C-alpha cells in the first residue's frame, strides 16, 4: 500500500523542508509560552526552512500562511504548534492538502492543552513547548505521502429496537427515501412508551401519540419491519455492513393474520393461563395472545411454553378452526435473513431497576408495593384493571406513598440520576389523586424538573395538594407502632425540611424505579463493536459534540440505550441519529482513516502472531503465500498487531515505529 502510494506521489523536490507554524491562540498560548522563543528555536531544527508565528493559526489567514508556503515550494511538510490534534488536526490537514500535497505530511504539536493551559511557570511552559515542537519536526520528516481513501456507502439502514426511538429514527429515514430494516425483539413495536398511560408534563395519552407512528411504520413502503426477531451477526464496516437477522417462529403466518383475534376467543383455555408480560404479570394471558390491542404488526403469537398442543400434542385446535385465513402454522421454525446496510442505529432502550434489590422497601414481600411501571399499567384503560386503581385485594387505596430515586442516585446501585423519575412520579401523583382521591405522599431527594414545562408541572402538582416530603425513605414496613397504623404499610423516612423522622401510613407504595441498561447490553456492545461506560450504557463518541455517534463509524445511538432520558430527548436524539445516517448515505462515500496497519510481505515470516490479535478480524493468513495480510478497509488502526509483530513486518501508517521513535527522541533531545 505504502509503496503503491509512494509511486504516485508527486515530486517533493528533494529532502524534507519543514514549515513550523506556532499559534498564539490569542493569549491562550502566548500568555504563558514565549512564542517568539519557540519560533527561534524551531528555526534551529534540522530540515526546518520556515518558522512563523500567528495569532490564530486556525483562522483563514492562518491557514493561508501554510497553503502559500506549500504552493511556493518553501516547505513540503508542515508542523503546526497550537491546540490539541483532537481539535484542529482535520483543519490543518485540509490546509496542507489545499497547499497541494498529501494532508498527511502534517504533524501537530499540542502546546495549548498539553502545555500552556496546564503549566504554571512560563519558562517551564516554553521549554515544554520546544520539546513538543522538536518532536513534531523529527516525526513529520518521516511521514509518508498518503492519499486520502474513501469507501462507498450502502444506502440502506438497520434500526435495532422498535421503541419510540427506533420508530422515530426509522420513519425519519424512510420519509427521506431510504430503506430501513427495523428489527424488534418483541412481537410488537412500541417499547416502554406503549406501556405508559399518560406522558408528562402535557398529560397526553401515550397511546394516542404513539400508535399513529406505529401504524405509519407498518404502512411505510420503505420500512421492512421484523418483529420477534434479533440481530445475530454483524460484519463489515461503515458503509458496508452485513447483518444477519433471526426470526423466531410465532406459529402464525404474518402475511395471513389480520389481527381479528377470533382465535384468542376460541382458545380451549377460557381464561388467561400465564402471567401477561405486557401487564408485568398483573393479569394473565392465553397461550395464543397479542400483547395489547394496538400491537404492530397486529399478529397473534403462540407461546409454545404454555400451549397444550406443543406440550402434549393433544388439543382440538379450536384456534386453528376459528381462523378464517388459515394463518396458523405449527411447523414454523427459526428463519434467517441477511441484509446489507450502510449505517446502523441502535435504539435498544432500557430496563427498569429491580426493586427486590432494596429489600427494605418490601417489593415482592408486601403485595401493595408496586413499581411505577406496574402503576402505569393499572392506570391504563387497556390494562389489567381497565384503569381502575384497585389493590391486589380489590380495595381502593386512600393513602399512597411514592418513593423517588429507587435504584438511582444511590451509590449502592446506580450513582446516576435516571432523569425521568421525578417527573413521572409527579405525573403518577397527579393521576392517582385524580382517580382515587387518595392522599399522595411523594418522598424525594431533590426535584429535578429541567425540561420545557416541567417546573410549571411541578408547581401545578404542588398546588393540587400532593404532599412532598424531602428525605430518603429508610424502609417500608407493616409493623404498626400505633393503632392507626394497623393494617397499613408504614413508610419511615427522615423529613429533612422539618428535621425529624416521620412515619406515614399508606395503603399503596409506588417505587419510582430508575432506568438501567438492558441485561444483554454487553452482548449487543460486542455484536456492534461499540463501547459501554461504567454504568453499562453505550458510549457516545463525544458527550457534547458527537452525542449520537459511536467510536465505531457508521453505528449511531438513539434513546435510553445511551443513557436515561425522557421521550422528548429520545425523539430528538432519534432524529439526530437518523440525520447523521442520512448525511453519511447521501454523501455516498465515507472517508477511511489513514492510520491503518499493513504488512510488508517480504519481511513477514508467516508466524501468525498478528492474526489472532486483531479484534476486527482484519488480518487473514494467506495459506498459499504463507503470509499475513491486513484488509485495510476493515482495519481500524489500533496498531495492536504492529506492536506485537516480532519481525517489524507489520507497520501502521502515520504511526510507524520510526515515526514514534523520532517523537520519543524529539521530546527528550530537543534537537
Amino acid at each position: 500500500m505504502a509503496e503503491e502510494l509512494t509511486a504516485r506521489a508527486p515530486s517533493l523536490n528533494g529532502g524534507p523542508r519543514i514549515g513550523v507554524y506556532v499559534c498564539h491562540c490569542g493569549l491562550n498560548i502566548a500568555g504563558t509560552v514565549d512564542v517568539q522563543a519557540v519560533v527561534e528555536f524551531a528555526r534551529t531544527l534540522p530540515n526546518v526552512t520556515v518558522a512563523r508565528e500567528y495569532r490564530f493559526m486556525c483562522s483563514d489567514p492562518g491557514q493561508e500562511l501554510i497553503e502559500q508556503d506549500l504552493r511556493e515550494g518553501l516547505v513540503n511538510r508542515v508542523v503546526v504548534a497550537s491546540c490539541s490534534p483532537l481539535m484542529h488536526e482535520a483543519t490543518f490537514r485540509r490546509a496542507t492538502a489545499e497547499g497541494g500535497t498529501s494532508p498527511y505530511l502534517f504533524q501537530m504539536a499540542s502546546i495549548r492543552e498539553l502545555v500552556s493551559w496546564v503549566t504554571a511557570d512560563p519558562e517551564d511552559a516554553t521549554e515544554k513547548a520546544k520539546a513538543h515542537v522538536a518532536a513534531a519536526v523529527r516525526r513529520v520528516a518521516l511521514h509518508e505521502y498518503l492519499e486520502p481513501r474513501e469507501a462507498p456507502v450502502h444506502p440502506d439502514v438497520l434500526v435495532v429496537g422498535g421503541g419510540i426511538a427506533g420508530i422515530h429514527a426509522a420513519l425519519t429515514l424512510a420519509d427521506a427515501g431510504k430503506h430501513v430494516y427495523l428489527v424488534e425483539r418483541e412481537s410488537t413495536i412500541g417499547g416502554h412508551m406503549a406501556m405508559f398511560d399518560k406522558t408528562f408534563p402535557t398529560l397526553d395519552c401515550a397511546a394516542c401519540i404513539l400508535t399513529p407512528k406505529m401504524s405509519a411504520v407498518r404502512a411505510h413502503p420503505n420500512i421492512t419491519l421484523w418483529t420477534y426477531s434479533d440481530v445475530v451477526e454483524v460484519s463489515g464496516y461503515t458503509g458496508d455492513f452485513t447483518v444477519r437477522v433471526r426470526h423466531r417462529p410465532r406459529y402464525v403466518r404474518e402475511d395471513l393474520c389480520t389481527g381479528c383475534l377470533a382465535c384468542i376467543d376460541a382458545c380451549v383455555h377460557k381464561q388467561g393461563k400465564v402471567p401477561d408480560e405486557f401487564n408485568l404479570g398483573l393479569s394473565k394471558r392465553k397461550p395464543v395472545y397479542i400483547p395489547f390491542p394496538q400491537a404492530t404488526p397486529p399478529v397473534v403469537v403462540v407461546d409454545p411454553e404454555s400451549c397444550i398442543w406443543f406440550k402434549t400434542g393433544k388439543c382440538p385446535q379450536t384456534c386453528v378452526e376459528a381462523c378464517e385465513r388459515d394463518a396458523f402454522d405449527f411447523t414454523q421454525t427459526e428463519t434467517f435473513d441477511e441484509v446489507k446496510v450502510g449505517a446502523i442505529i441502535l435504539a435498544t432502550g432500557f430496563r427498569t431497576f429491580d426493586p427486590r434489590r432494596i429489600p427494605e422497601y418490601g417489593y415482592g414481600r408486601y403485595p401493595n408495593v408496586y413499581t411505577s411501571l406496574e402503576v402505569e399499567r393499572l392506570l391504563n384503560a387497556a390494562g389489567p384493571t381497565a384503569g381502575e386503581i384497585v389493590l391486589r385485594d380489590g380495595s381502593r387505596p386512600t393513602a399512597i406513598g411514592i418513593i423517588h430515586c429507587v435504584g438511582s442516585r444511590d451509590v449502592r446501585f446506580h450513582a446516576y440520576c435516571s432523569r425521568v423519575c421525578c417527573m413521572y412520579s409527579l405525573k403518577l401523583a397527579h393521576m392517582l389523586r385524580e382517580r382515587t382521591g387518595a392522599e399522595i405522599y411523594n418522598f424525594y431527594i431533590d426535584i429535578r424538573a429541567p425540561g420545557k414545562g416541567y417546573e410549571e408541572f411541578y408547581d401545578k402538582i404542588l398546588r393540587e395538594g400532593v404532599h412532598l416530603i424531602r428525605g430518603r425513605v429508610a424502609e417500608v414496613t407493616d409493623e404498626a407502632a400505633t393503632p392507626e397504623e394497623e393494617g397499613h404499610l408504614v413508610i419511615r423516612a427522615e423529613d429533612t425540611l422539618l428535621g425529624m423522622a416521620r412515619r406515614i401510613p399508606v395503603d399503596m407504595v409506588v417505587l419510582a424505579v430508575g432506568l438501567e441498561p438492558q441485561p444483554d447490553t454487553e452482548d449487543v456492545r460486542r455484536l456492534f463493536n461499540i463501547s459501554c461506560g461504567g454504568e453499562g450504557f453505550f458510549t457516545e463518541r463525544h458527550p457534547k459534540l458527537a452525542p449520537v455517534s459511536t467510536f465505531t463509524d457508521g453505528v449511531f445511538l438513539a434513546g435510553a440505550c445511551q443513557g436515561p432520558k425522557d421521550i422528548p430527548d429520545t425523539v430528538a436524539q432519534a432524529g439526530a441519529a437518523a440525520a447523521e445516517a442520512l448525511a453519511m448515505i447521501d454523501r455516498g462515500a465515507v472517508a477511511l482513516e489513514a492510520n491503518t496497519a499493513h504488512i510488508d510481505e517480504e519481511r513477514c515470516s508467516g508466524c501468525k502472531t498478528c492474526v489472532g490479535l486483531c479484534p476486527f478480524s482484519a488480518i487473514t493468513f494467506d495459506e498459499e503465500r504463507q503470509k499475513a495480510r491486513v484488509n485495510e478497509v476493515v482495519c481500524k488502526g489500533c496498531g495492536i498487531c504492529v506492536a506485537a509483530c516480532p519481525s517489524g513486518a507489520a507497520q501502521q501508517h502515520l504511526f510507524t515505529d520510526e515515526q514514534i521513535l523520532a517523537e520519543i527522541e524529539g521530546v527528550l533531545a530537543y534537537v
Partner: protein
Amino acid sequence: MSKPKVAFYWCASCGGCEEAVVDLAEQVLDVVGAVDIVFWPVALDFKVADVEALADGEIAASFINGAVRTSEQREIVELLRRKSKAVVAFGACAWLGGIPGLANLRTREEILAEVYRDLPSVADGAMPREEVEVPEGRLHLPRFDEDVRTLDQVIPVDYYLPGCPPPVALIAQAVTALVEGRLPEPGTVLAPDVALCSECPRRATKPEDLKLERFVRPQEIVADPETCLLAQGLLCLGPATRAGCGAPCVAANMPCTGCMGPTGRVRDQGAKALSAIASLIAPSDPEGVAKVAEQILDPVGTFYRYSLPASLLHRRVGTDGGRPAEPSEPVAAAGGGEPR
C-alpha cells in the same frame, strides 16, 4: 591478481565460531586456496607485528568473533579495523554481545569478586592486576572493562554474520561473495531478513489464534515433534529471530533461543520478542496475566539471551552509577590473552 587477504580474530567468545570456520570441511580448503590468510591466532602462527606491518586497508576482510570486554580486544580490533577494507562481525557475540553479554547483568567488581575471591574453589583470593612485577621484569595484562560491548560499539562494522555459531552455509556464502567481490551494502546482516518461522517445518501447525494459558520449559514436557513448539507452551523465539539457520534446534525438538538475532526492522530483539510473546497470554485481568507471566522465570535470559549488550538499555541499570567507568584499582583481564 593477488588473492584477497583475510584475517580471523576472536574476542570474548567460546571458540565455537572458530569451529564453524573449520566446519566448512572440504570447503575450508577452497577458502584457504582462494584467500591469503594473514592473521588467525587460533590456528596459524602470526604475530600482531605482522598485522601492524601491513598497509592500512590492505586486508580485504577481517572476520572478528566474540564480544569485546578487554583492553587487548579493543586494541586488536582497532588495529584490524585500520588494516581492513571490511570488518565482519562474525557470530552472535560480535554482532549482539551473545552469551558473554549476559555478564552485563553484573558489575565488573561483582564478577571479579565472584571468580577470584568468593567461589569455593578459590584458595588465595588474589586479584589479577594490570601490572605485575616478576623476577623477569614487569608483566602487563589487559584491562577487564566495565561492560561487555558488541563489536560495533567499539569499531565501525561493515557486515554481520549472525548465529551461535553462524551456519556454515552462510559463512560459505559470505566468503564466496568476498572472494568474488560482490558484497552487499555496508551494514548488511548476511542472512535472510525474515524470521525463522518462514523456514520452520512446523509452521503449518501454528494456530492463527494462539492464546497461552501457561509456559513450560523443555524439560517439563515431552514435546510433540510435529507441532509448533510455541503452541505447546514452549518459549520458542523463532518468530522474533532471523532465519538462515534452517531451524536445527526445532528439528531437534528444542525451541529457538534467538541466536540469529533480530530482523532488520527490529531495534531491540528482546523487547520485540517479549511484546510478541506477551500478546499471546490468554488472560486479560492483572492477576491472570501475572500468573502466566511469572512462569517465564528468567525474562532477561530468555529474551536477551544473545543480545543484552546490543539492547537499548545495554546492561543492568544502576551498575555504574552513571559515571564514566574508571577502575578503582588496576585489575587485569583474567587469563592473559593472545601472544603478542
